[in-house]
């Protein structure tokens, strides 16, 4: 009856030289669940999320994610795009790398949904911070990931963008497993099925 959890972390520790950022973190997340990660600044939220998507490896312990890179989506502190390419060019590049089927249609749909269609031909360097974050979300959702990892996604967004994101998250929850690090856990409200609090101690 109980299937293997999609994400399993055991005794995860992460050090940078002598500085220890994560200590003995363990949790499990089943498919379709939504994990909210909270904690003060410096508690290792960003590090943990990067470990989840494979941008870093734990110094000790294990993290098992039952998905390959093609099914992971990530929005970090940086938008992970090319500043001097247009929104369209960025998404086209990543669309090719992720082998997104019906690439053009999907890109068009996402740009529209996040209100970026009119700015699609502008370079990212001309975007506002909120627009850049929205583009980052488009990039993360382009390939319909099964696991979406978001690092404080609301922080760079204006009110309109944040509302769009909340809408999107609600729509995603049924078919996507979510891990969200946030300072405002109440935003996710009933969506969350599990929570993890990282402390500095």
């Amino acid at each position, binding site marked *: 009856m109980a299937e293997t959890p999609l994400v399993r972390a055991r005794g995860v520790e992460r050090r940078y030289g002598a500085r220890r950022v994560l200590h003995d973190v363990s949790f499990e997340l089943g498919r379709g669940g939504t994990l909210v990660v909270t904690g003060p600044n410096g508690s290792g939220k960003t590090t943990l999320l990067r470990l989840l998507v*494979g*941008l870093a490896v734990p110094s000790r312990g294990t993290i098992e994610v039952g998905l390959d890179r093609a099914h992971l989506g990530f929005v970090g502190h*940086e938008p*992970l795009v090319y*500043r*001097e*390419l247009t929104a369209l060019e960025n998404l086209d590049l990543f669309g090719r*790398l992720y082998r997104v089927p019906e690439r053009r249609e999907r890109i068009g749909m996402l740009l529209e949904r996040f209100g970026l269609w009119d700015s699609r031909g502008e370079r990212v360097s001309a975007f506002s911070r909120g627009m850049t974050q929205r583009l980052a979300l488009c990039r993360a959702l382009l390939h319909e990931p099964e696991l979406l990892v978001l690092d404080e996604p609301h922080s760079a967004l204006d009110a309109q963008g944040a509302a769009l994101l909340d809408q999107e998250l609600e729509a995603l929850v049924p078919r996507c497993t979510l891990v969200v690090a946030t300072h405002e856990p109440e935003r996710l409200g009933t969506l969350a099925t599990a929570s993890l609090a990282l402390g500095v101690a």
Partner: protein
Amino acid sequence: MTGYFADVAALARKDLRLELRARDTLPAMLLFVLATLVVFHFALPADAGDDPAYGLLWVALVFTSLLGLARAWVPEREAGALDGLVLAPTDRSAIWLGKTIASLAFLVAAEVVALPAFVLFFAPLDAHALAGVALASVGICAVGSLVSAMAAASRGREVLLPLIFLPLAIPIVVGGVGASISEEPGKFLAFLGLYDAVFAILSWAAFEYVVTE
């Protein structure tokens, strides 16, 4: 397999598009190599002959490519795009190959200007010398892309790149100069081919470890 090369093509195209738009690296390389050649004219004594000039051509090429390589990964660093590439299902070595091809395109473009200038200012270049330039360019870009990524991960990046790159470039200079002035250029061309093979394969395989943790 076709997916791999499609990725490489997409990545190389991206770099060419970025350069076409920004137009900062290539003009700098062109100007730099011309200026260097002029400096060399003044650096050489009047009766120096042709041989020293060939040596200096290679110095000019190596340092000009350093200029280009220093900027190779800047677009990836700006907004964390490199993380985006590493996250993608793409083979990490494809990232290296795409960057190498793009760097090679820029270096060749600089050479298209530099070589005629050299012939004009100093001495003729025969087929062997040109073959040497071609082979050396491949080696420079193959090793340079990897080494530049290493330097990009560090704090002192601009200063560090020449330090890491130059010892590795010494064999290239030997091969190139030899192909230009020796009576047995074939030996040197074969050597350059060997260098390219060894270090291209090494760079191709090792790139994964330079961009992941």
